[in-house]
């Protein structure tokens, strides 16, 4: 065998590929296949068990021309994204800034604020259903102490989505941790220099802390936007029979998609819906990426 069959560089490259193999194989076999299949099946009347006839763009045409519920579901989801993403991002950022102070007992506070991120899933939703109960829930009882007559939260279509956004705010601990880690890495000399110049705490936050954590803000924005578009569980668990709440106010995109797929068995239609969502999220993400260089600051980076 020829010892120089591969150069050192090629060998390194090969090793790299081998290390990413598990992902590539997983992606092709477990994600790529179904992805392609769902794209093809979105042009059919696929129902899993028996039918799979090509019907052209009928599913897509129906979505945009005839399906009122589709528009409701899309609007509900966009509403949720528009409010929950900025609020949770800002919330996490401020929380991290607070928890980055040098006060005694900070570890305890950090633990307390991070705890909700550890709890997850259905248990939390059930807990929140009790918290949000109009008469016996803690939230309205607490509001009552200040003379505020709390809303009907999950029973009033105007308040159902704010209820979920409030719930999301409670669990910002996860992204808070990212901000906190990033803030701890900011060089003290920057703050010292600012202090010599007489900068206030707020100015230091705005002109040093925020720019230095913009990569994390960017990452958080992109991932939480994608995540918010995919909201499903919350509505599925917190509405009766997973139907989407009073007056369809919690019928989110993925919940409607799920109902179409597994209640009406209209799998082709559901797949078309998932591709529409994919395109929406894709466009927004590209937009985000294009916009990023204007405001995201990479320390020691070369403007990329």
């Amino acid at each position, binding site marked *: 065998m020829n010892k120089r069959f591969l150069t050192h560089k090629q060998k390194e490259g090969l*090793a790299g590929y081998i290390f990413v193999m598990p992902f590539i194989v997983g992606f092709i076999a477990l994600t790529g296949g179904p992805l392609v299949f769902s794209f093809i099946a979105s042009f059919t009347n696929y129902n899993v068990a028996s039918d799979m006839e090509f019907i052209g763009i009928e599913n897509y045409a129906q979505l945009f021309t005839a399906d009122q519920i589709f528009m409701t579901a899309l609007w509900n989801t966009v509403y949720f994204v528009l409010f929950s993403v900025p609020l949770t991002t800002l919330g996490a950022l401020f929380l991290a800034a607070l928890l980055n102070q040098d006060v005694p007992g900070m570890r305890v506070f950090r633990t307390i604020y991070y705890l909700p991120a550890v709890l997850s899933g259905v248990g939390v939703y059930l807990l929140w259903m009790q918290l949000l109960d109009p008469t016996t829930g803690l939230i309205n009882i607490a509001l009552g102490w200040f003379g505020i007559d709390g809303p009907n939260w999950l029973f009033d279509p105007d308040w159902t989505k704010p209820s979920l956004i409030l719930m999301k705010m409670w669990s910002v601990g996860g992204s808070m941790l990212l901000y906190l880690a990033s803030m701890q890495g900011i060089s003290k000399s920057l703050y010292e220099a600012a202090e010599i110049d007489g900068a206030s705490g707020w100015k230091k936050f705005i002109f040093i802390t925020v720019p230095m954590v913009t990569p994390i803000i960017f990452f958080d924005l992109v991932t939480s936007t994608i995540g918010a578009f995919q909201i499903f569980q919350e509505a599925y668990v917190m509405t009766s029979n997973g139907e989407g709440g009073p007056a369809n106010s919690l019928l989110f995109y993925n919940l409607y998609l799920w109902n179409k797929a597994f209640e009406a068995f209209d799998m082709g239609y559901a797949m078309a819906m998932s591709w529409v969502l994919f395109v929406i999220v894709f466009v927004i993400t590209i937009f985000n990426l294009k916009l990023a260089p204007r405001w995201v600051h990479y320390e020691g980076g070369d403007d990329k």
Partner: protein
Amino acid sequence: MVSWKKTGVALGGALLMLSGCAGFTTGDETEEETALEEEGVEIVDFWTFWGSETRRPIIDKIVADFNESQDEIEVVHSYYPWGDIWTKELAAIGAGDPPDVVINDINATALRGMEGQAESLTAIMGNNDISERFYPELWEATLYEGESYGLPFNTDTRMLFYNKDAFEEVGLDPEAPPATWAELEEFALMLDEKAGEEYERIGFYPLWGVGYDVWLTNLNGENYIDQEGNVSLATEENAEVLNWLKSWRDRLGADTVDSFKAKFESNQGHPFLSGELGMMIANMNFYTQIRDYAPDLNFGVAPIPEYEPGNGFTSWGGGFVAEIPKGSDSPEAALEFMKYLTDVEAQTYWAVQNFDIVANREAAELAAQSEEFSEDGRMVYEAGTENMEHTILTPVPTVAPDFYTLVNPEVDEFLLGEQTAEEALQNAQEAVEALVEQNQ
């Protein structure tokens, strides 16, 4: 050279692991099952969502009894949670390796027949003779184009529960529950008890326990959408019913209604059990809650009152069927087991242990006499089986299986005061008609 070899081995190993995955199709079978299969015993894979402490032992006992009664078929019971079981089943059908018997929702049996998710039992049996053993309404719900796609297992029925002591207290005859909507309203007003602005007892509220759709069914004697997808929502009578339902909320006040509603979730604080609610519509097996949490409650049970004398006491029921998913590899054995499951012995056992109305008529009637029930238990069970003649199911039409997603929000908006009953019904009617059109 050496590292190249190593990577080659690693690569080969990875491929082996992946190809190994292909051999996992029988991965869920135990050695014991494989051994049984070699002896010629047919394995029937049986999926239910009955995993609770009360239900699991009951179904396991039925399965064990069947397995002991013969030696050709071995039924293996697996529990999947309520939220998962049917999506898993569908995935398994799609993958071509489904279980052999699954418990599924009776109201969508015809739909699954049409979609090709279930095997036609009529095709396996060659006839529909088995239908004799079931309540006809239940059997009907399993048919698609004259062929049955599931054997009814259990059902339920909505009835009026009323507090006899409260009746007596306000001078009503405890043996004469309301028979019409007018009486219902009259009695409810008598049973209301207020201390200042707060209600200490509410006589009745129609939307606790059942939805608006049950009242529409009670009025019309049938669902507002039939099997062909003909919709009859936008009628004057239906609008009247919706307005009647809303008038209760308006009279009691939204706050009172909402605060009472929250109490239903706890067994101890349940308004009917604590005497804060005079009458309510509930599933007949609500009795088990009374039995367990308010054993001293002096209550009666009656059919849902009729709209007008002679209109009929129509009630609504649901239930479950046992069915064979498409692609099962032992449909005959599966059917044998399903016959056992729906025969008198197993059904009586289930009925008595679970206080469920079972689909097998003879078993339901036997259970009503069971010595294992208390006097109250027998009274309720008997009233429940008698109520079956007024009880209709609402199988989903195959042309609009998700019609309710269009109707419920419109009615919600009406109840919230955002549109009139006529508008709500008209919008819902048009939306469902459009869906039917789209699917035809």
